[in-house]
Structure formats: C-alpha cells, structure tokens
C-alpha cells in the first residue's frame, strides 16, 4: 500500500505543514473579524490588539438597533429565497430537456448559457436598469429577482443537465412502455430521482444570490429594499467607521454560508465541478 495515492511528490511532514498553513490562512482572516464582532468599542481599536474579546454582544445589538441589520437580513432572505425558487423551477425543466430529450441546437444553447455566465455585469447594467426603470420596478423585490434568476440560470441548468444525464435510461424507457406521457415521466419519475441535483443547485444559487452586490447596489437605492451586502458596504458611522458593527453584520451574513459549506461540502464541490468541467 503506497503511503499516498494521488499527488506524487509530498511525504508526511511537508504535507501536514502545507495543509496546516492552507487551513490556517483560509480561516484566520475571518476568525479575526468574528473576534472583532465580540469586542467592546474600545477593544476594537486597541493597540496592541485584544486577542480574547470580552464577549459582549454590544456590536450586534447596536447593528440591529442603529443600523437596521435585521431589516437587511429579511430583504436578503426574500431575494435569495425567491431567486432560488424560480431559478430551480426553470432549470429543472430546461436541464431535463437538454439532457434527455431530442432537441435541436443543444450545443449552441448550452454554449450561449455558458456565455451568459461569463458576462461582466457592467455589460448589461445600463439596459437592465432602464428596463426596470420603465417598468417601475427599481427598488422592488421582483426588480432584483429577475436579473438574479437570469444570471443564475446557467449554473442551475448546467448542474441539473449533468445530473439528469447520469440517470439510467431504463427507468425512463420503462415508464414510456407503461404508457406514461412525457409530462408524467418527468414529474413522477425523473424529478424525484434528480432531487440530489436539485438540492445541490439550490445551495449554489442561494449562495450566489445571497452574496451578489453589483446589481443590488444599482437596483436597490432605498434602504427599505437593500440586501445585506449593500447594507454592509454602505455602513457609515458619524465620524469613524463602526468596525464592531460592520464585523457583527458580516458575521451574520457569513455564518449561514459557513454552515452550508461544512454540512454540504461534498455536494458543493461536486456541483461546482459539474457546472464547470462538463
């Protein structure tokens, strides 16, 4: 038994050292911010830095009462939730059609979806703003959800197409022979089987919508509708930056994602490489 199978040029000591450095560097900066969120205002700016915070929830309380933190959280949940729902709904249908039905121009369709995922947002920003302006949908949830659905569709469709393609043909054939129509085959047989793929795609779409900043900044100019990233980016104190509150809001924005990552890292990795490699 070789002591390791994959990478050929590392033995034990350098391996653990590298792993340690990588993990340490990945977690340290955010751990520092999390630590900052639990400090009193005086501890936040102290030199030398306070390593063990007094554990006060002052910054969280202040972020909620002075900076409307919960309000941003609510907007983010609504926008990310609606985006995930609609993107997945549309992606399930499109992914199934592209993976398992005889369809013309399959290549160009998949290619143009890939192109959409590559667009720099600025290349569509002006027109999207104008369309939403004309509809009166700036500063509305649907105004942000519509572009988000568009921008996350490539991810959703690619992942689901890959999942549908990997399902065995026999089940579908059996359903057809039993006289199931296309619609029945899709809803009764295929969609339940693709549930893991749906779940994976939903996690990735949710993370995208939860984190997106550029369009949120353009479309939500009133605080009433702003999402968490916009809120965090625009946090302003009267004289100095309220670092404790910024760190608290950042922690609130990040903890759900860190939980998702630790619970579903295998799925996320598979989803990312399905969207990218195939």
């Amino acid at each position, binding site marked *: 038994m070789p002591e390791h*199978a994959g990478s*050929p040029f590392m033995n034990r000591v350098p391996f653990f050292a590298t792993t340690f450095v990588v993990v340490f560097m990945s977690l340290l900066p955010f751990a520092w911010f999390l630590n900052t969120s639990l400090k009193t205002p005086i501890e936040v700016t102290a030199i030398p830095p306070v390593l063990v915070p007094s554990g006060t929830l002052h910054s969280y309380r202040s972020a909620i009462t002075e900076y409307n933190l919960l309000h941003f959280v609510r907007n983010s949940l609504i926008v990310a939730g609606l985006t995930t729902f609609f993107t997945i709904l549309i992606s399930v249908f499109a992914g199934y059609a592209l993976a398992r039905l*005889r369809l013309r121009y399959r290549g160009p369709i998949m290619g143009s979806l890939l192109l959409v995922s590559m667009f*720099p947002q600025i290349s569509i920003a002006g027109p999207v703003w104008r369309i939403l302006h004309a509809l009166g949908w700036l500063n509305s949830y649907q105004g942000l959800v519509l572009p988000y659905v568009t921008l996350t569709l490539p991810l959703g469709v690619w992942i689901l197409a890959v999942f549908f393609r990997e399902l065995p043909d026999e089940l579908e054939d059996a359903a057809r022979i039993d006289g199931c129509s296309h619609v029945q085959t899709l809803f009764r047989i295929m969609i339940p089987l693709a549930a893991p793929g749906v779940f994976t795609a939903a996690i990735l779409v949710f993370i995208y919508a939860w984190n997106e900043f550029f369009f949120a900044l353009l479309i939500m100019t009133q605080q009433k509708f702003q999402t968490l990233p916009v809120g965090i980016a625009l946090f302003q104190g009267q004289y100095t930056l309220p670092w404790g509150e910024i760190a608290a809001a950042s922690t609130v924005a990040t903890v759900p994602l860190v939980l998702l990552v630790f619970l579903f*890292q295998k799925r996320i990795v598979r989803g990312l*490489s399905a969207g990218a490699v195939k």
Partner: protein
Amino acid sequence: MLSQNSAARHAEMKLSSLSRERIFALALIAPCFLFVVVFAFYPILYSFYLSLHRIILGIPSLGQPFTGLENYRDLLHDRIALHSLANTLLFVFISTFLEILFGLIIALVINRHFRGRGMVRAAILVPWAIPTVVSSQMWRFIFNDQYGLLNYILYGSDTSRYSAWLADPVYAFSAIVAADVWKTSSFAALLILAGLQVIPDELYEAARMDGAGAWQRFRRITLPLVKPAILVALLFRTMDAFRVFDLVFVMTQGGPADSTNVLQFYGYKKMFTEGLMGYGSTISVVVFLMALAVTLLYIRVMGKGMLKAENA
C-alpha cells in the same frame, strides 16, 4: 399486406412521437430562453445602441441625440479610462496567475486520503463562500492604518511606523490582488482537484516502478493530464477577475489617484454616479467585447487540449 400497413402506421406514430418530444422539449426550455433573451442578450444589444447616443440622466430635456462613434472617440482620449483598462488587465494577469498557482498547490495537497479530509476541504471552501463585500470589509480592517492587524504584525506597538496601506497606489493595488487571491484560490483548487481525481493511481505506480522520481512523475503524468482542468479554472478565474467590482468599491473606491480604478467600477461611476448613460455604455460594450474575445480564445485552446487528452 396487413403487416406492411401496421409497419407504416408504426413509422407514422414514431414520427409523431418524435415531433411531440421536440415540442415538449421546446416548451420546457422556453422560460429559460425567455429570461436569457430579455435580461441578457437584449441588454447587450441595447448597450451597443445606447453607446451610439448622448444620454445624460440628469438632463432629460437633452433627449438622446444620435452621435455615432463620438463616445468611442472620447473613450480613446479618456486618460482615466485607459488607466482603468491597464489596471484591469494587470489585475487579471497577476491575480489569475497567483490563483492558479496556489490552486494547484492546494489541490495537490488535498488530493489524497487522510483523516479529516472533509474538514480540510470545508475549511478551504470558507473564503469562497464568504460574500465578497464581507471579505472586502475584513481586509480593509486588517489593512487599517491605525489599528489594522497587518501593521501590528509588522511593527508591533510602535504606531509611529504604521503605514496607511490603502492610501498608497502600489500597496492599495496589491491589497486588492491579495484579497482576491485569498478569496478565490480555493475555487481554482477545487476545479483542479476534480481533474486530479480522474488520474488513475496505476499510472503513478507504473512510473515509480520504472524509477521515475517525484518531479518527473509530476511533470510527465500530473501536469499533462490535469491541463484541461487547469484551463477550465483559468477561464473561470479570468472572466471573474475581469468583473472585479466589490473589492474596489468597498476597499478603495478606485483610489488613490485611480491606482485601483478598474473598468467595471469606472463604467459604474460614469453611468450611475455621473448619469452618463451613453458614454458609460461605451465602456460596457468594450468590456463585453474583451470578455467575449478571451472566452472564445480559451474555448479554442481548450477544444484542442481536450482532443489531445482524449487521443493520448
């Protein structure tokens, strides 16, 4: 006679089932198609149309007179725009190069079986999952001139030596590169890891039997076989680096002295801060065409790479 008849009817049914399947498939992709056309392809064309007009949001009475290529001529003489272009290209080159390098190293490290591998993988995914706005604020805090962690690590409590990193053109640019590399190397690592995992162990075993050293095994087996995955990671990272915005908006607002101004941020400011919809759209079109050119280039190279990998 009878069997011939039924065969014909069978063929007819098959044909109609094929066309029914096609109609069903079209109906299934229609909503996706609609979204992409209305909110992605139409806006691209509309951007091009807007870039040929003078539109100032603050002065609606101006209307939108057609000005031909005037905006494009102005763009060529806009020193800040050219500076932003240079910054964008520099940012794309440096950050992508470092991300692929670190990504490859991380992938090589975690591509083996060890206890706690899932935890390690989750830990390196954390930077990827953090909202970019959050990581931008976090790095801005670490680079802070009065109580930032970096100053403390370098100079201890001697605050007289503390440096305002984000107020210096070179350091500010480096800070943005560092924040981007920190956040996205793990993404590159995961894509490259997916490529590493399909390389069969037997190849390494055989090479080892033949007396190939570690470096030789890496050069002759790992690198060529993982090349397609590296190219995919490179494509995704390049396109993402092109649209860097959040980091610049939060950490530097393009400053100091436009040293961190990039095209996406400059276009945003022209369109939405100054209200120059026509001129801003010119920047949109240029950024789009550059991104398109890079994508097509990669796809050509990758197409060839994949073919070679399959033949080998």
